[in-house]
């Protein structure tokens, strides 16, 4: 699942799809943590998953605000068009 998200992140050129792929990747990492915690019967994996959850929430709120801002300014969600954004 992580590799699926990574491939999508590299392939897609829509900003919202990029954010969704990030969600998938974070989710896969959290899944790995919970599976490991369940394997060794420790609660640490679930705790780390909670931290990943909080971080994903903060990241996605800021990211979506940036998406709205970029869409207002450029009228497009194409990542390649934003490549000229320097200086």
């Amino acid at each position, binding site marked *: 699942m992580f590799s699926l998200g990574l491939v999508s992140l590299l392939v897609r050129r829509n900003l919202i799809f990029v954010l969704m792929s990030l969600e998938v990747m974070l989710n896969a990492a959290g899944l790995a943590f919970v599976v490991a915690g369940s394997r060794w019967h420790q609660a640490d994996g679930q705790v780390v998953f909670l931290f990943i959850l909080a971080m994903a929430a903060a990241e996605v709120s800021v990211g979506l605000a940036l998406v709205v801002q970029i869409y*207002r300014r450029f009228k497009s969600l194409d990542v390649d068009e934003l490549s000229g954004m320097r200086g």
Partner: protein
Amino acid sequence: MTSVRYYRETYMELVFYIAGAVAVISTGLMLTRLNVVHALLYLIVSLLGVAVVFYVLGAPFVAALEVIVYAGAIMVLFVFVVMMLNLGAHEVDIEKQWLTPGIWVGPVVLAGILIIEVIYLVRGTTPGLATGELGPKEVGIALFGPYLIGVELASMLLLAGLVGAYHLGARETERPEIQHDTNTDERRTAAGGDLVLAGAGQPSRTP
């Protein structure tokens, strides 16, 4: 007794693999959709599948949080932003096109598989694979024991995210006001400070 338990674990493994397959398939379908809303549907199904996997693995607390926070809050954020960006007159036609029943079939079938699994799990007696269950109590003790500093850092991160999202989202609405103010100042200066003459260049509103 032993054979019953053995069969139960076998079924549990079957449920686990089916839920994992549903999650992976819906993720793959999500990544290949061209429409954002279709992709969101598949993403929700994928998150629910991961939640079922968590439940089978003996982590019901995390499964509930996955459904509430990911499939609830974060997906609502995505849907809000998609709806905000899709303002336009031609959207009605696209909306009609969306309402064709063909696109619902995939997510509905996958979600139906998950629902059947959840019903099977709830009707059973002992959830979890052979490794046993880690309930909310253990997670809470570990969270507020050795990981307390992490909780504080996560709260600060969430606060920073809140402030950042508010700042980024509110910047565009401030700009017209500033523009308006400078225009007024320019006009007042051009009219020599006379507020009555300041509106002379404008087309009059009263007939």
